[in-house]
């Protein structure tokens, strides 16, 4: 009651502020939400646009979705992407660890630039690089062809092109994960009797699992979306992007649009599931 009489002006202010609290809106967040909605809205609009057209003719959509060519191509794309990611995990993880733990130096700067190169290059250039190296007369293509591993218009060609364009996504994410593991933890493990490999296996890697996982998803997403990089060395077998381009040029918009819509639905579902699974990965050091 004292506040109402206004004997102490400070209390009166507090009361009015309390009264406002329910209606208080963080205007910064509000404005930013509106701006963010524009970006999300663009994607939603694009999907809605295609969905409207496709759902108008469900029979055609189902026919395309059930065709062995489309299913086979989607599976091939996912598999080749997974294969590329597997190789990346195997070879990119050690590189990421070295980059995370080494001191800055000129050599390190050069290596970092090389790692990032596929990010900067036009995809056609990346495709050309892969093609020239792995074609039948290429530096690596020729000796590998000798032992029966052909890249041109073959599955290995698809994998190696995907590997090239996806590598920075995995390596940089993995490296960030390693950098977040405090060196003190490794030091303690060492003094407790663990060698460097054991320390990596029992401390550093388990604590970076979440980064390994999200890096792998990033890289996989990048890999299965690749077109120009892959098409130069392996036009066949058709991965999904090649198939859509092929049907677009040969059969027109109607079929290619249906394939595209199927891919959107499948990708959305798969990535949503993979993202949900992130929370199951690894226990984190909250102090970091």
């Amino acid at each position, binding site marked *: 009651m004292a506040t109402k009489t206004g004997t102490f002006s400070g209390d009166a202010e507090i009361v009015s502020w309390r009264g406002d609290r329910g209606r208080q809106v963080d205007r910064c967040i509000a404005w930013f939400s509106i701006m963010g909605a524009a970006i999300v809205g663009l994607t939603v609009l694009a999907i809605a646009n295609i969905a409207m057209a496709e759902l108008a003719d469900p029979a055609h959509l189902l026919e395309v979705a059930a065709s062995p060519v489309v299913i086979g191509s989607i599976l091939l794309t996912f598999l080749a992407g997974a294969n590329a990611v597997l190789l990346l995990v195997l070879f990119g993880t050690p590189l990421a660890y070295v980059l995370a733990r080494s001191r800055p130096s000129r050599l390190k700067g050069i290596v970092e630039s090389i790692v990032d190169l596929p990010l900067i290059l036009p995809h056609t250039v990346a495709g050309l690089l892969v093609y020239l190296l792995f074609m039948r007369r290429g530096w690596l293509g020729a000796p590998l062809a000798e032992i029966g591993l052909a890249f041109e218009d073959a599955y290995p060609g698809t994998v190696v092109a995907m590997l090239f364009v996806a590598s920075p996504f995995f390596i940089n994410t993995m490296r960030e994960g390693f950098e977040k593991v405090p060196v003190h933890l490794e030091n*303690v493990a060492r003094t407790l009797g663990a060698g460097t490999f054991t320390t990596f296996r029992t401390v550093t890697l388990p604590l970076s699992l979440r980064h390994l996982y999200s890096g792998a998803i990033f890289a996989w997403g990048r890999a299965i979306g690749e077109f120009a990089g892959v098409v130069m060395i392996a036009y066949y077998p058709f991965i999904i992007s090649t198939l859509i381009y092929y049907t677009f040029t040969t059969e027109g918009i109607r079929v290619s649009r249906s394939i595209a819509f199927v891919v959107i639905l499948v990708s959305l579902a798969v990535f949503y599931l993979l993202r949900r699974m992130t929370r199951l990965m690894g226990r*984190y*050091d909250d102090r970091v």
Partner: protein
Amino acid sequence: MIAFDRVSLTLGSFRLKDVSMTIGQGDYYFIVGPSGAGKTVLLEAIAGLHLPEHGRILLRGEEITALPPERRGVALVYQDYSLFPHMTVADNVSYGLRVRGMERDAARCEVAGLLERFGLGHLADRYPGTLSGGEQQRVALTRAVAVKPDILLLDEPLSALDPITQERFIDDLRRLHREDGLTIVQVSHSRRETRLLATRMAVLIDGRLVDEGRADVVLNAPKSREVATFVGIENILDGTVTANEDGYAVVDAGGRTFEAVTDAAAGEAVTLCIRADDVVIGNGGGARNTMAGTVVAVVEDGPVAGVKVDCGVELTAVLTRRSVQDLSLAPGTRVTVAVRAAAVHVIRSLS
């Protein structure tokens, strides 16, 4: 047991310079120094985590300069505990045994007793993130002790704990040292911890080891003015020896003369160190240095009080709060101050 022989080490912009020290079997060795002096780096160097550029490190007389940490028999506890966040308490503590090849269950059995001893039995299946700071610190200590190290290295183990937990922890550490006979090296910047635990100590300032020896000697008879300031000697006076007779010197310190036991010859510049508890207010009972002065300030600190007296130079005495009341000391009170000649530690600038 472990000895540093002129070890130099650069780490980024930081340098350890020419550090020589010896840590004996059974020592409770303190490395003290201001923040940024390189104490943690020195500790990590003992553990083998940094390779020195110059100098040698010896373990029981054998050179181990390049021996990796996992083969040194040295366990390290960091200030931030550094528990493995993805392992339970029991797995953290048995980690050292498991990487030595022991089976998981056997290792857990092995550490069960240890967990009980340190009051962690009920926490065995919890993850570190759910523990309090004090509990985490005990887990870190238990994990280090579990591998039965020759030397236990502690990096400011008490600094993040509340006072009550600190007391418990100090008791644990004392038991580990006395009853288990563990050699402990502890980094600290707390004078109190040093007084309570240290048997030997080193003072590290700006990457350089400026004093080393028995803890009571370093604390009460430091080698340099820098060390004296750091270990908290309350009265540090610069002066010149005016006469010396059979080891009893007269030192002129800014207009007031003191008698002290030293070999310093007449004319030599010296620094006098007098601990506040050696400055007696009231009847000095025949002390060589007795002088009249005026109280300028009384600073209470719990059960004790620091009394600053101006007697030509300013001297600080420490009394119980009760004594201050009994003597009715307050700014302006005229008092007699007495310091025994033997209580005046003389630092010779040449030494």
